[in-house]
């Protein structure tokens, strides 16, 4: 089935031990090839993202000087000086080359609105985004899986129907609107939580008070984010469990005398989890960009609100950098899912 010779030469650079006939060596050479294929694909995708961001923001968008100098008249000399400063007087291929090398060395240029290096801006705002969508995503995944498996296992019951209906309803609600309603009810009418922002200025500077304050501000945005996202996990988990439910191995497990609960936990769920892994990884990529709307509703000082704010300035270098960051994070997350698949799904190893 798997002949070592044909796989060995393709992957010789990754796995030097591949030529030897140890069984372990054969597996690693197959993995090397698989890895090479997918890493290569991801690298091409990333390059395409760089290409398209250059295309969108430098070629379609026109001259940034026009936008920068909207309100005031500028002399041709001033214009030329600005062009030279931004590197726009170079030939297009030179600009493209500078852009690619700049991005690869984390030199993302300077923001128009903050007059600061974009890299610093991103580093400064990343934690806020990670806290918000990281918490929201973990909650959504746990909730979606937990309810999804139980609903699928007891298909057609009141529990199942009720949860599917609730999930669909929340899934249909526009995130921004749900956020506004949540603010209206919990912050405005009931006054339980702050309206927006991440921390209050009056909080003492020690770690625990700060953490508590951020947690307090985090409740409503996380509620919004989770409410909209969890239904997707619920539906996928439910339907992949439904796919397994008629399988023979479950009948066998029951015939062995296992309790219903054990059959579900030990036999059905592990198999049903497989298709959901991709979804979780996609969501991991989404952690960086998934909360654009939520951050904007709650004025949360993360990357998403920076992105939206940059549209209207317009702060093109920031838009461009975030476009690349958001897109590459999803590409890398999908790559992660593909690599993980090698370890959890034996069928891939056989097909190569």
């Amino acid at each position: 089935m798997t002949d070592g010779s044909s796989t060995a030469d393709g992957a010789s650079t990754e796995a030097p031990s591949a030529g030897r006939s140890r069984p372990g060596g054969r597996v690693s050479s197959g993995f090397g090839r698989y890895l090479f294929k997918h890493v290569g694909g991801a690298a091409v995708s990333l390059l395409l993202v760089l290409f398209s961001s250059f295309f969108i923001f430098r070629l379609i968008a026109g001259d940034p000087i026009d936008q920068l100098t909207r309100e005031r008249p500028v002399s041709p000399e001033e214009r030329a000086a600005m062009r030279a400063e931004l590197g726009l007087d170079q030939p297009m291929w030179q600009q493209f080359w500078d852009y690619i090398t700049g991005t690869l060395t984390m030199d993302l240029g300077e923001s128009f609105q903050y007059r600061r290096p974009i890299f610093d801006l991103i580093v400064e705002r990343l934690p806020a985004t990670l806290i918000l969508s990281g918490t929201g995503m973990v909650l959504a995944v746990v909730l979606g899986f937990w309810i999804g498996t139980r609903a699928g296992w007891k298909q057609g019951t009141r529990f199942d129907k009720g949860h599917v209906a609730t999930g669909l309803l929340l899934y249909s609600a526009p995130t921004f609107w749900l956020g506004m309603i949540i603010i209206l009810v919990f912050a405005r009418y009931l006054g339980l939580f702050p309206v927006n922002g991440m921390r209050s200025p009056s909080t003492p500077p020690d770690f625990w008070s700060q953490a508590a304050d951020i947690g307090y501000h985090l409740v409503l945005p996380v509620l919004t984010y989770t409410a909209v996202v969890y239904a997707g996990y619920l539906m996928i988990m439910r339907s992949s469990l439904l796919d397994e439910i008629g399988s023979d191995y479950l009948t066998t497990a029951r015939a062995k005398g296992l309790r219903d609960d054990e059959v579900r936990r030990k036999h059905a769920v592990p198999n049903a989890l497989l298709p959901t892994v991709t979804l979780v990884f996609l969501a991991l990529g989404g952690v960086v960009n998934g909360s654009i709307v939520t951050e904007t509703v709650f004025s949360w000082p993360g990357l998403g609100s920076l992105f939206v704010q940059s549209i209207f300035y317009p702060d093109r270098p920031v838009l461009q950098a975030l476009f690349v960051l958001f897109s590459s994070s999803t590409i890398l997350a999908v790559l992660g899912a593909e690599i993980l698949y090698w370890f959890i799904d034996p069928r891939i190893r056989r097909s190569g």
Partner: protein
Amino acid sequence: MTTTTPVSPRSLRWARRRQSFTRSWNAYRSQRTGMIGLFLLAAIVILALAAPILVDESQLSVTQATGGRMEPPSAGFPLGTDEVGRSILALTLWGARLSLLIGLTATVVAILVGTAIGVTAGHIGGWYGWIALRFSDWFMVLPSLVVAIALLAVLGRSMSTTILVIAMVSWSGTTRLVRAQTLTVQARPYLERAKALGAGHWHQMTKHILPNVLPLVLASATLLVPSAILMESSLAWLGLGDPNVVSWGSILNRASSNGAVSAHAWWYLLPPGLAILLVVLAFMMCGRALEAVFNPRLRGEQS
């Protein structure tokens, strides 16, 4: 069922199509959620079409507004007024037209492009098929809201760019689906027969592959519309919609930029948002029911 005497291939074909349509309709009709969704959808579409009869367009004008600033619901304004005194009811009714129009048009464009690329990629294959598949994979991975925002930010705000941008971020799923289905249809014996009888690529694609792919496309289109409508409302709410038209998203954009939340103006927020929710829900219910009808994997009883 078609009676005696020689039947032309055309009438035979139509009789078969009618038959399979009736079968699908019966399968659809037996699903309660699908029927509820269909009724809901019909009601919304009728209201949207009748908006000009129910409410005069002059009520949308900012300068001719008759009400006070953010008045709560009253007899004259059943759903209250906005910040310049226009009726929220009138705005929501008219907004339905635009939200539906953009959602449907964007979906149609996405489906046409996706199906064309999918069928050709599956049928022709080779280098072209490989590149088309990789390209659609790439598009599928990109975060759609980010791409849409970036494109709208540089292309400018108008209805046609909104439609174009939404179509651009949603065609790739259809391509994948159609390509996969094309490959399975292609493996069936009757295509071999058609080829043996000298059918060209065009004939094979339009007469044999497309009719077999279309039902699945229809089901996936029904599920694309709600995401297009949600996308449009998010973009309009962010302020990236056409400034000259009223859609549900743009109403909510005005609501939040004029402080409707801090003014506790729930009547300004609820109607357009609930309208989006209902339309999306209706389309999802219909789409899920259609999927159950057309997706062979979910269709249990037939062999």
